[in-house]
């Protein structure tokens, strides 16, 4: 990895019931993610994705690029806008620095024209680092 390199983009379309499976898997049963009617009542367009699910997609793009789960040293994200089920998420990232066996990757996640995770920064432990 060299500064300026782009990591392989990760694209995924969460299906209609993904938020239910993620709620069960994570333990986050906030009804805004699983109950269409409740979500609308609190002014949302409908059920929204868990931010931490979307962050997991950003993490997955990093561990794919870094060669496995042990490569991810740090990940920090800001959530902006709401992710929706049944629409494609695309994670991209660019290496901005490599030093002392650690690559810094600036990354984000878009859904359509919306950047729902921005100012994300990952640190990847490089092999032979």
């Amino acid at each position, binding site marked *: 990895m060299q500064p300026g390199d782009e990591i392989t983009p990760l694209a995924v379309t969460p299906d209609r019931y993904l938020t239910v499976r*993620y709620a*069960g898997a*994570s*333990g986050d049963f906030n009804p805004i993610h699983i109950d269409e009617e409740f979500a609308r009542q609190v002014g949302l367009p409908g059920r929204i994705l868990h931010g*931490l699910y979307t962050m997991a997609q950003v993490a997955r793009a990093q561990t794919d690029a870094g060669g496995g*789960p042990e490569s991810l040293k740090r990940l*920090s994200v800001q*959530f902006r806008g709401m992710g929706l089920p049944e629409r494609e998420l695309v994670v991209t990232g660019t290496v901005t620095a490599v030093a002392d066996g650690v690559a810094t990757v600036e990354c984000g996640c878009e859904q359509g024209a919306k950047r729902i995770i921005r100012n994300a920064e990952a640190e990847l432990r490089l092999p032979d680092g």
Partner: protein
Amino acid sequence: MAVNPGVIGKTYPRAQYAVGREKIREYALAVGETNPLHLDASAAREAGHADVVAPPMFAVVYSLPVILTVLFDPEVGIDFPRLVHGGQEFEWGPLVVAGDEITTTVSVADVSERAGNGFYVFASESVNGQGETVCSGRWSNIVRAAA
């Protein structure tokens, strides 16, 4: 809204979480992991791990019970319908594998108010049975101003 900066520094009772193979698989499948290290115990063993490996973001699973305690603490006073997750940071140490016992502690790192919005930062630290820090987290939450 009024925030309560008096809770800054408050810590919560530690919580233990026993990491199970099927829970890792359930989580890995939910987030779309395809790496066999997370799904197949024999593949994980061949790679030198004791059992299936938790994806890094599995930190959410073993940290969340304590984070929920903080979110529901009346002294913190979060107004749920106005709560949004503003940001998240994790830093990882050694990998977590099925069979590990993880102990997590959480504290209130910061509480502030700007333009009627409440900003809350919670810090989590999770250690394994060997006392190694497997993950530390900063959970930033925003309680939006009343419309």
